[in-house]
């Protein structure tokens, strides 16, 4: 726990757990539109308004949360909660961000199931369903663009993406197997191509 920022205290004294819970309920229930909106609300409430966590500490949590499996925002709420109020902060932050959003999602789904036989709703879903496919494809391209290397290596990386797509989409390969192979390949190609030429010993703390 000797990270550069880990000793840095939050600017204000730790909030009451009720105030903290209330802030997360607001974040979890108002953040229409997924990740960017949620992130924006977190910063606006926790950093700017309440000053429970410093901008620098928040940024560091965000960078680390990117390495988590699954939903990065859940990881981020845990990391930020820990910075604000330790173990209690984690429990309060994660549960009060997730539960309202989950509840609204379930009620929304239940409402949809009730009315989905109506012609108007069927028309709406007839438009929305293919659009979700388009959104998923756009997300894939976005992920790809943020992960491929520059220059000629980009061609190799996109080829890699295409092979993974074909193996699963056409040849029905195991998704887990592809992910494992991707991780191994990622490690193998990481070294010789020296992604960080400026900082060969980039493991240094500072």
């Amino acid at each position: 726990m000797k990270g550069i920022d880990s000793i840095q205290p939050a600017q204000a004294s730790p909030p009451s757990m009720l105030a903290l819970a209330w802030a997360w309920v607001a974040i979890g229930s108002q953040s229409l539109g997924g990740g960017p909106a949620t992130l924006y609300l977190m910063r606006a409430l926790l950093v700017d308004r309440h000053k429970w966590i410093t901008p620098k500490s928040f940024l560091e949590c965000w960078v680390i949360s990117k390495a988590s499996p699954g939903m990065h925002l859940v990881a981020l709420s845990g990391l930020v909660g820990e910075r604000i109020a330790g173990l209690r902060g984690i429990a309060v932050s994660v549960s009060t961000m997730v539960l309202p959003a989950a509840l609204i999602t379930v009620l929304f789904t239940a409402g949809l199931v009730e009315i989905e036989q109506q012609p108007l709703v069927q028309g709406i879903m007839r438009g929305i369903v293919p659009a979700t496919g388009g959104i998923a494809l756009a997300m894939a391209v976005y992920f790809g663009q943020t992960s491929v290397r520059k220059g000629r290596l980009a061609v190799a990386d996109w080829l890699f993406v295409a092979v993974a797509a074909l193996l699963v989409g056409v040849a029905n390969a195991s998704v887990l197997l592809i992910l494992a192979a991707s991780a191994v390949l990622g490690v193998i190609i990481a070294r010789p191509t020296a992604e960080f030429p400026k900082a060969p010993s980039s493991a240094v703390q500072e």
Partner: protein
Amino acid sequence: MDPLEFFLIFLKATTFTFAGLGSLPLLQQDLVHIRGWATDAQLAKAVAVGRLSPGPNGMYVVSLGYLLMGWWGALLATLGSVLPPLIILPLAPVLRRTMHVPWVNGLMRGIALGSTGLMLPVGLALALPEGFALSNARLAGNIGLAVLAFSVTRTGRMHPALVLGGAGILGVLLSFAGL
């Protein structure tokens, strides 16, 4: 559907993937292809609800859980997808030091690239739920809607709820036109 198996499928799908929709390929393989517990149309419905309701996009799994197994399904899916990201908490001090080590970085990029590839067939399956068995007119409508949603989402400037709202209106118009 065995509740424990159900929970483990969601846990697995979240543990080995990154970000909101990253779990979709694994869930599709396990739930649709291997066990037949879900259909591509249900996946699409859940993704749409996840986009339209508050919170992270990954919350689509909650909707999927509810569609497949009611309130219990929603609870199990929520637990299965909230627990894995928390593994980062004990790892955070180590990560602060090793995140920029080339091989750690390469590992994460490899997984990200693999996930990108895995997402492509899922996106196609959602856009064309019945594959190419659709009538030509419907097929053209679906492809048009998917391409439209793809292009306005890609730039990241338009709010996803607006994109889906627009798609809903277009869907109603297409239905009235008999497409």
